[in-house]
């Protein structure tokens, strides 16, 4: 892990709120100054008490100098030295008037310190929340710019873990460390300055702790960092495993893999345990070490301070203040130390988020990309070649033209590259060579948004989001009216089954919606495309889960939809495509035959064989 750069980058994410960050630092300076001044004044108060205590025991009328001289004359040198450091008023007790006003000042000081501290925390909270908010937003918008290949490679659970677990961790880290970081650093500085004003010798003792602290922290942190990186990487991997196991829940059971899946989970879970335990333990050493350093200073100051009191160079109140300062000095230091584990853990998470934000994006729209006004919808492939995997040949030098209003059917065995053609038309992937044009314009010169809004697509995999049926249909076009939604629903036979549902169009389709069957879901996706009114329609196995009676109805709707529209239909049921204007038969990435149904049957080639297989074979089957 690159702690330094990643931490700096994380801090850099605060930049949009820099005015507030400066405000936080200023507020911090004020509240620290007030807090730091407190013990000094309290020290003065102690001195007042001590002075009064000794004064009251001394005979009234004598001056301090006379008394000290008297003591020395009696050979009580130590006592004399002790008293010489005080401000005595013999015969009088504690000056309660002076003490009272001094303590009132201290009270006011503390009150203000707390108010400023609160203001600082309040502003900082906003900064943290907004920073984390922006980070989530950036990740989401990044997802929209990543090429589809990225999602083929990365498990969903892993990505999700970065957005929830890692960002959540960053949020905790920022919240718990930022405010303390600011106040701790400022307190250390402030206290140090005040210490020097009281006694530079004692201050030097405290100063020694800084390099010591740095040395200990960096030595330990270096070791724990690796473990924190491992901890969050394991969390992501575990999340991916959980996501997959929960998604394929039924299969895991029926295939009797529960034990296996559990064992694999247990392994990963244990790895996570090992990593997080090591991380926490190693970084957990920092705080006790800081405590040790703190106590070292405490003892040092007590010893040296005691000697100085005895020698009369310092008052008891000063030493007492110093001891409190030494606590104020080492406490933020050990706080910084205890933050080390949070900070490291947070930076490790930040790095995982940055990694996602830095992932290579899909090629941006060309600078001169246009959003042409909708044309008639002529789509042409010109010598197109494409492979997902450079090693595996797929589409090679393919050319075809779909004229406006034509219905082009693509048939062929599974894996021949039919769906790939759709992926290329939609520009989900970029070509290796050749070009695809829409109304004569190379699609790489058209903005993706404008290209895709002109192509309507219904996929084999039905995808609906968790929302009502109405919202899912309305997904097809922004600003569709209720009447238009109903029209699409009626045309695609959604209306028919929706009426049977208790909540009608307000039925919520949840994650594994059990209230709506797979075929019904597909009808909804068709209605969605219907509503989009594209100039080119792509139906990739759109009716495979719809029963044939429904399909017949859908086809009538589709036929109406296809009028004046260029349509691509990929289908396995040849019945679906017999009325196509042009049928392309694909095999292994190239077009082996093309023509109308009648023409292709007459040639008795690949299409003829497919056709016969469909209508002749099943009757003889035993399945």
């Amino acid at each position, binding site marked *: 892990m690159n702690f330094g750069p990643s931490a700096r980058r994380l801090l850099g994410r605060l930049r949009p709120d820099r005015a507030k960050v400066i405000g936080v630092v200023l507020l911090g300076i004020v509240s620290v100054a007030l807090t730091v001044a407190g013990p000094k004044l309290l020290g003065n108060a102690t001195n007042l008490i001590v002075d009064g205590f000794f004064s009251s025991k001394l005979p009234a009328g004598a001056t301090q100098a006379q008394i000290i001289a008297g003591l020395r004359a009696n050979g009580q040198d130590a006592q004399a030295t002790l008293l010489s450091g005080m401000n005595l008023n013999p015969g009088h007790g504690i000056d309660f008037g002076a003490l009272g006003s001094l303590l009132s000042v201290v009270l006011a000081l503390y009150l203000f310190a707390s108010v400023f501290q609160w203001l600082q925390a*309040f502003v900082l909270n906003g900064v943290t929340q907004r920073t984390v908010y922006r980070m989530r937003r950036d990740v989401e918008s990044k997802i929209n710019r990543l090429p589809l290949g990225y999602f083929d490679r990365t498990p969903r659970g892993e990505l999700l873990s970065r957005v929830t677990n890692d960002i959540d961790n960053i949020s905790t880290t920022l919240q718990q460390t930022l405010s303390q970081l600011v106040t701790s650093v400022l307190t250390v500085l402030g206290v140090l300055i005040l210490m020097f004003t009281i006694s530079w010798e004692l201050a030097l003792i405290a100063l020694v702790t800084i390099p010591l602290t740095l040395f200990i922290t960096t030595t330990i942190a270096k070791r724990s960092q690796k473990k924190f990186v491992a901890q969050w990487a394991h969390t992501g991997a575990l999340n991916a495993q959980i996501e997959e196991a929960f998604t394929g829940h039924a299969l895991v059971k029926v295939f009797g893999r529960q034990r296996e899946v559990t064992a694999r989970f247990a392994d990963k879970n244990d790895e996570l345990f090992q990593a997080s335990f090591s991380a926490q333990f190693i970084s957990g050493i920092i705080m006790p070490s800081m405590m040790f350093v703190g106590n070292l200073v405490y003892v040092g100051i007590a010893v040296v301070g005691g000697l100085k009191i005895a020698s009369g160079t310092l008052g008891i109140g000063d030493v007492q203040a110093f001891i409190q300062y030494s606590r104020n000095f080492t406490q933020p230091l050990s706080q910084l130390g205890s933050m080390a584990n949070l900070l490291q853990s947070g930076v490790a998470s930040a790095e995982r988020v940055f990694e996602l934000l830095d992932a290579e994006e899909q090629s941006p729209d060309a600078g001169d990309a246009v959003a042409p006004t909708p044309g008639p919808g002529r789509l042409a492939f010109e010598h197109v070649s494409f492979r997902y995997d450079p090693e595996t040949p797929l589409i090679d030098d393919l050319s075809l033209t779909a004229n406006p209003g034509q219905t082009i059917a693509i048939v062929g065995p599974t894996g021949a590259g039919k769906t790939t053609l759709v992926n290329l038309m939609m520009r989900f992937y970029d070509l290796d060579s050749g070009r695809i044009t829409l109304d004569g314009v190379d699609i790489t010169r058209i903005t993706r948004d404008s290209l895709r809004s002109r192509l309507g697509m219904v996929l084999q995999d039905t995808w609906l989001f968790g929302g009502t049926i109405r919202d899912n249909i309305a997904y097809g076009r922004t600003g569709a009216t209720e009447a238009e939604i109903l029209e699409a629903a009626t045309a695609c036979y959604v209306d028919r089954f929706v009426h049977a549902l208790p909540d009608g169009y307000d039925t919520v389709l949840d994650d594994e919606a059990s209230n709506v069957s797979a075929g019904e879901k597909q009808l909804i996706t068709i209605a969605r495309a219907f509503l989009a009114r594209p100039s080119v329609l792509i139906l990739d196995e759109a009716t495979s889960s719809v029963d044939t009676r429904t399909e017949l109805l859908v086809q009538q709707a589709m036929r109406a939809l296809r009028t004046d529209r260029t349509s691509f239909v990929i289908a396995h049921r040849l019945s679906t495509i017999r009325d196509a204007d042009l049928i392309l038969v694909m095999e292994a990435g190239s077009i082996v035959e093309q023509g109308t149904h009648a023409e292709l049957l007459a040639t008795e080639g690949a299409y003829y064989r497919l056709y016969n297989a469909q209508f002749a074979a099943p009757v003889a089957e035993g399945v």
Partner: protein
Amino acid sequence: MLLRLLLRYLRPHTRLLIGVVVFQFGQSIASLYLPGLNADIIDNGVAKGDTGYIIRLGLIMLLITLGQVACAIIAVYFGAKAAMALGRDLRGAVFHQVGSFSEREVSRFGAPSLITRTTNDVQQVQMLVLMTCTLLVSAPILAIGGVIAALQQDVGLSWLLVVAVPVLLLSISLIVVRMVPQFRLMQVKIDAVNRVLREQLTGIRVVRAFVREAVETERFEQANLGVTLTGLRAGRLFALVFPVVMLVVNVTSVAVLWFGSFRIDSGSMQIGSLIAFLSYLIQILMAVMMATFMSIMIPRAAVSADRISEVLDTESSVLPHHAPVTSLRATGTVQFRDVSFSYPGAESPVLHHLDFDAVPGRTTAIIGSTGSGKTTLVSLIPRLFDTTGGSVLVDGVDVRELEPDLLWSRIGLIPQKPYLFSGTVASNLRYGNPDASDDELWEALDIAQARDFVTAMPDMLDGRIAQGGTNVSGGQRQRLAIARALVKTPEIYLFDDSFSALDTATDARLRRALGQRVAGATVIVVAQRVSTIIGADEILVLEHGEIVGRGTHDELLASSPTYAEIVGSQLRAEEVA
């Protein structure tokens, strides 16, 4: 909930916890001892000007400090171990529990929420335990020890404690009480972010095809804003805690000096005692603060604990029988006896009083329109759901009385959505039969008409499969799912509309090869196409959850108007040209 969960899952780590308490105790005693020594130095060393005494006591202080550090490090070791082990055990328990769930419970919680509960929620509880072990355990020791030590110094000032501690506790609990609802919301909002994003990732092609990035961004924005606003509200309350604590601590120390000065003036208190009293007081209040600071974590962890317990306490609606039947005559008969089923909360049942037998060597086909309950019917056999009326028997035994593993080992399910797991072609094929040889895999691929494309993959059987099988086409996925079931060689095959993504030639070849392979098995086929089931031994026509016709293709043509209509629609479809 939190306490119950912790008591139960920390029990195995009692020894570690005892270690934590013992060493934290040692550590706390040491830090309590230090201010006393300091007072001693001032009163006996400084006042008498005894330098040797000061140095001697200083060395003792250092020794104690060393012991304190050793104790603290050991305590951290035990604490980190106990907390992280708790996290591991909780994740394991939740994962295990979800494994026992039926589809009903999984869909009730929703997969995204279950995922958050297994990771993020456990994380919250785990962090609380970690913080408790490293910081909180010493707080009461420090506080009580501090009180005793302070009383030893001066009883006269102790009334200040009686005032300060409750004031501190009260003011902090007032804040914390207001934070709890925010934290509860927080986890719900995180769930929402997870759900929206998971949906977006699943449907990324559709999102892009419909140029709906902006809409998705807006949906995410809403979820994101939700978390942020909740976080802001919780954070604002949190911002109050520290200043309030500091104010109480500081005001108290001023009060100690003020009232202490009277006692010194009257000669009933030593100066060293005043300073020590002040140190102890600050220590006590710091301990109370630490405890309350930790208590900030408690609300969120408690909410998480509730969410975890909710999963752990949910009994699967499909429970294994208390005395299950563990062996069966291996035949594979499936019988439906007056079976009805309705989804919870649904008005009308999905299946009504179904009765039929599927026997080995015969193919039972189920045909019906979209939404007629076909998939539900199939799910009842492997007990993905339990019937709400009547019973499903396998080999004459009610599936609810069968040992689940035994039941599942009988069944080869090819689901409507052919989900594949991330891994390789081989790892997916061996899913139901880990010991299958490569030859067996190839044989299954042959039957499933998948040999060609697997051979074309650069690594063949070791070819990589992405999660869900998204890197192969729908038809390829379906054929791999069929091969996966074949490798298992079960007695009962359940094909749930498993040929829909196949082109017709492949479909025909596949079914011809399949016919020989599954000849002795019980086959239940759900289909849309008449051509798929035309040769079945018995066809059940399902309409609105009821069997409205049964018989062979020819019989049904004559007897069932619904069937005739389905056939008619498909023939018409073929003739429209």
